[in-house]
């Protein structure tokens, strides 16, 4: 394997609501892992406050001391004025790179400091990407719906040396709503939720009426039940992605990181990695978007 093409590994923002102790445990493990970049912050619901701002900053300092590049991620769906205030605080932190997951954050960062364009920004062509590159985007996390062919088409037009990050492992966000579906499942409204999503560290399973694991409810976010797996990119060694993102999950994040790290270094085969990783994807794997098929399809 050619070292130059070996992608870096990132750990995406924790999408689920976990008790504080479990979050601390995750980030302690990550500090000792082979992950290169860590994204911190709440991206789904501003009512989740097991970690306060000072906790995120303290975690960022610990991870930086352990040699990790740290990025602060912003909320994907912004509704309240108070949320805008917090996003502004993140954008003006003066030190750490910020992942903008909404155009409000882009507006606060554009022309001021370099930023990461998050996967929910709706950038799907070269002209849109170039516009954000001109405004300071230095890394782009590829949106959920994008295929390999589309990404290649875009990369061919962008001469700026930006980084391309792929959502390589984890359940993918498919929709965001004002309504909290976890609260709805408990027959309560969002204002009365009492953070009931904390009881579902991998989300709440939504099955079809013939028992197919179809989606996962995660508060206001609806996710794929299947786990996105784009590790064939490592096998192909094509260099289309500079960074592979792993999304934290309740069980085995440290082992998933180790396996994907071993795979990128050529220490294990794709078959061995796949066999081991499938155990961490209870509803199976998918990679349909990446191959231009219906999203939930598993092609490779």
């Amino acid at each position, binding site marked *: 394997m050619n070292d130059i093409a070996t992608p870096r590994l990132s750990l995406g923002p924790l999408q689920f609501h976990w008790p504080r102790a479990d979050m601390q445990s995750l980030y302690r493990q990550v500090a000792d892992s082979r992950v290169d970049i860590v994204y911190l912050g709440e991206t789904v619901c501003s009512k989740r406050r097991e970690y306060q701002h000072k906790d995120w900053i303290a975690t960022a300092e610990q991870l930086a001391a352990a040699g990790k590049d740290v990025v602060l991620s912003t909320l*994907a*769906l*912004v*509704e*309240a*004025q108070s949320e*805008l205030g917090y996003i502004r605080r993140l954008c003006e932190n003066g030190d750490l790179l910020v992942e903008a997951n*909404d*155009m*409000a*954050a*882009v*507006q606060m960062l554009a022309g001021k400091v370099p930023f990461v364009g998050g996967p*929910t920004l*709706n950038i*799907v*062509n*070269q*002209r*849109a*990407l*170039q*516009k*954000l590159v001109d*405004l300071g985007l230095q890394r782009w996390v590829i949106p*959920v*719906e994008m295929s390999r062919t*589309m990404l290649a*088409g*875009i990369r061919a037009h962008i001469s700026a040396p930006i980084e391309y990050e792929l959502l390589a492992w984890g359940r993918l966000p*498919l*929709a*965001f*709503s*004002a*309504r*909290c*579906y976890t609260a*709805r*499942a408990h027959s309560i*409204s*969002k*204002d009365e939720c009492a953070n009931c999503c904390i009881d579902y560290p991998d989300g*709440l*399973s*939504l*099955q*079809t*009426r013939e*028992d*197919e694991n*179809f989606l996962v*409810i995660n508060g206001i976010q*609806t996710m794929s039940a299947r786990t996105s797996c784009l590790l064939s990119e490592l096998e192909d060694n094509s260099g289309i992605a500079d960074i592979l993102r792993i999304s934290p999950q309740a069980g085995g994040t440290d082992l998933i990181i180790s396996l994907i790290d071993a795979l990128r270094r050529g220490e294990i085969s794709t078959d061995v990695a796949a066999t081991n990783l499938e155990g961490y994807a209870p509803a199976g794997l998918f990679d*349909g978007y990446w191959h*231009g098929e*219906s*999203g*939930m*399809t598993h092609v490779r």
Partner: protein
Amino acid sequence: MELVCPAGNLQSLKAAVDAGANSVYIGFRDETNARHFPGLNFNDRQIVEGMQYAHTRGARVFIAINTYPQPASLKKWQYAVDTAANIGANALILADIGVMDYAAENWPNLNLHLSVQGSATSQDAIGFYAQQFGIKRAVLPRVLSVRQVAAIAKKSPVPIETFGFGSLCVMVEGRCYLSSYVTGQGPNMYGACSPAKFVQWSKTSGGTETRLNDVLIDRIADDEKAGYPTICKGRYCVNGDVGYAIEEPTSLNTLPILADLVEIGVAAIKIEGRQRSPAYVGRVTAVFREAIDKCLADTQAYRPEEKWLAALAALSEGAQTTLGAYSRNWH
């Protein structure tokens, strides 16, 4: 307050204008707009005719080019922008930054509106499009409470348009991938949610099953009314209970809060439904025309009239209406 009405064909455009629409929004007959359905939308000749019909009666025509072009198809969207500009559209409704950049650069005098598909839910997000592309209006996604809309309307650099009636997207528009997850085609890049070619209906002993690309969306008993199988309106099993885990088949109706929307300074009310019949468009437009006129004449005294609500309920999905996210109770 401006009334903005949908038209999927020339007859609907005429029905909307005749019933009192201030503006009508339409799309080309391809995937450049978010109602890319078979048999729907306008060719160039029909657009010119529709534009003449509207303009001679004092109504404006907006053209929606509000989907997201892929790398290889950017030129098609740019051509749509050029065509719309050349035939004199009063405004273009755009979502993609690339398309907007092209339109602002090549047609600096053209009115650009940010589509609901642009997912802008704050004055800062709207500010981005205003600063970079000079948009003149933003359409808000259906995920905000009245209080949140009021705060944005107060601080937004451009006037705000909100949805008033019609099918209810419960997910923030422009970031919902449920349809493409199941079928490969969704609103963002294909211009349709749950495209008809993937819909399957079958009679079984347990009732009528509706499927989308083989995924079971609902099973409907003989005495129940079957809705179109969009993923967010299906029945699923969560924690052992079967039900509408996301939303029931229902339509948005803002007549009960119209006075609030006027008072907080919403500039325009949009009726959803380019896929609906001319008769539907005409009836909904007439009800909202009368309601808006009464509301503007005396906002304090405004109350939604029973006959309006009955007329709209009869036109609603599942014969039910909701205030959706405008009401905190809905969240």
